[in-house]
């Protein structure tokens, strides 16, 4: 069965375009049906070589390093670290992909508006979520601690509004008005996501105050701001994400290669434009196996295909489109019968 699956992966890779920037400086790792990464420290000199490898070996999983190295195939301590893409992983579930999309959009906006990044690539993970790769030169040199700080900006694990007020003293006075004017609702083109977390918070705080409170706030005077106002403003402001800290902060982490086929689903880790993201449905856009060709499978256990509303019974035989058959087989819920 494994050989048959491999043949299908190999054929699919013939039609997949791979485009990885600085491919020759990345470390690659491949996986089989038992282990997602069983071999690492692989390196390719060119995209052509990588593609030939994919067609020839047809690995069930392929990951690459966010990091760039002088010698990507050398042992860890001899690789010669040159920098690393800033990567975020939003991992939810196939069912909750819509929620994940919202998170990705928020994250994307913050990366752009707050952090000023421009070179941002979003891809479907091939399974339960999305990956975001930031490749701006300014991002590549951020250290482990700095990356952890960025994750915290999204996850708000240690957020404490009393602390906010304490730190806030540095910005009081004229600065309240300035932040509100340049980033918030008072600005020439009011846009919520313009002025960072603090700007959003101030804008929302301004919004929940009455006339008098607003007037004073603009002068940096918080005397009419009650803790109930702060709480309300915070609720409006904070969008707690669940970004995987380890993926972002581990500089030697291998991450699913974009546009590769995910060996747990048979779906493609497809790169998505922002416009495509909203309407993205993996059962449409991420399918690489045939939708017409029918394949016979036998269920090992009862299973429901997520986002499809198809329930399958243990022990039964089903003839279904190849892409769905591969999904249930790779999920280890069924075996190929042909």
């Amino acid at each position, binding site marked *: 069965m494994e050989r048959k699956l491999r043949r299908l992966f190999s054929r699919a890779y013939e039609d997949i375009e791979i485009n990885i920037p600085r491919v020759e400086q990345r470390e690659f790792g491949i996986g089989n049906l038992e282990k997602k990464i069983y071999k690492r420290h692989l390196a390719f000199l060119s995209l052509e070589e990588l593609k030939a490898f994919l067609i020839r070996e047809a690995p069930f999983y392929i990951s690459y390093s966010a990091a760039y190295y002088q010698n990507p195939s050398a042992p860890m301590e001899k690789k010669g670290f040159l920098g690393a893409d800033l990567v975020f992983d939003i991992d939810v579930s196939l069912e909750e992909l819509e929620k994940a999309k919202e998170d990705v959009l928020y994250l994307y906006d913050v990366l752009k*508006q*707050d*952090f*000023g*990044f421009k070179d941002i690539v979003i891809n479907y993970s091939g399974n339960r979520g999305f990956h975001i790769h930031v490749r701006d030169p*300014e*991002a590549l*040199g*951020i*250290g482990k*601690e*700095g*990356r*952890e*700080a*960025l994750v*915290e*900006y999204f996850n*708000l694990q*240690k*957020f404490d509004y009393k*602390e*906010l007020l304490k*730190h*806030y003293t*540095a*910005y009081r006075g004229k*600065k309240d008005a300035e*932040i509100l004017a*340049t*980033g918030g609702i008072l600005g020439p083109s009011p846009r919520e996501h*313009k*002025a*960072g*977390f*603090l*700007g959003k918070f101030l804008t929302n705080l301004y919004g929940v105050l009455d006339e008098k409170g607003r007037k004073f706030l603009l002068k940096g005077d918080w005397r009419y701001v009650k803790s109930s106002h702060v709480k309300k403003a915070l609720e409006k402001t904070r969008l707690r994400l669940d970004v995987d800290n380890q993926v972002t902060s581990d500089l030697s982490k291998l991450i699913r290669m974009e546009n590769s086929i995910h060996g747990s689903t048979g779906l493609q880790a497809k790169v998505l434009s922002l416009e495509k993201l909203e309407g993205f449905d993996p059962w449409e856009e991420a399918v690489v196996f045939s939708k017409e060709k029918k394949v016979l499978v036998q269920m090992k256990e009862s299973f429901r295909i997520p986002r499809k509303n198809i329930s399958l019974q243990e022990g039964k035989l089903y003839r279904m489109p190849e892409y769905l058959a591969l999904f249930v087989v790779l999920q280890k819920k069924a075996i190929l019968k042909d």
Partner: protein
Amino acid sequence: MGLDKDLLARAKRAWELFEKSKNPDLVEKDLLWPLMVFAYFRKPSLYPRLLDRYAKEEWKHIDKEKFIEERIPLKDYLNYLYDFPLYYRDVRKGWVRIDRDKDGLEVLKKQITQKIASIPREEINKRFKDWRTQAEVRLLKVSSHPPCIEALLKKAKEGKNMGHYERLALALYLVNIRLPEDDIVEIFKSLPNFKEKTTRYHIQYVKEKGYSMFSCDKMKELKLCVAECGIKHPMEWHYGKKAQKTL
């Protein structure tokens, strides 16, 4: 700053003074830097206080407006000020507004630490070799040891009888942290069947042969490991993995 020629001499002097006063605030100004270098590599618990004093002193003479802007690039913030959550700051388009006085000092501190951290550990070991023996004696009194060694030390102190491998492990450890022979003998003195001559002979034997300390695996095998303390070799407790080689 840096590793100039007389750093060693000055560090020695600084350490002696510090040993007397135990008060980092009383260390002479020009001895502060060598003592800090020492502390960073050898006595991390002392380091933050020294750094604090040193940086504050430097900060007085720095032209703050030249040193740091009121808005700094995000990447600089993440390099120097990552300990302070970003969401309390005004962050826009990759620029972070900071407090020149408060944050500037923190940036300076990080820069100093990064400078010290960039000194190769091997270099430090070489430079500080001569007087390490003396320092380690004191280190033994003031600092801690891995749990397995603590257990052995306790046993020795309480005058319990110790098996061959227990004695050997403890002796190897003490020799390897360069405790003077007299001090090692002192530690074994409480053992019921203690014989000074025999003890000295064994210590010298171990020293001459240059035996290194048992690894944690070996300690486990000998059933002398008492806790999962997260290290792979008992010597790591003091020197870290790299320094181990140069001992």
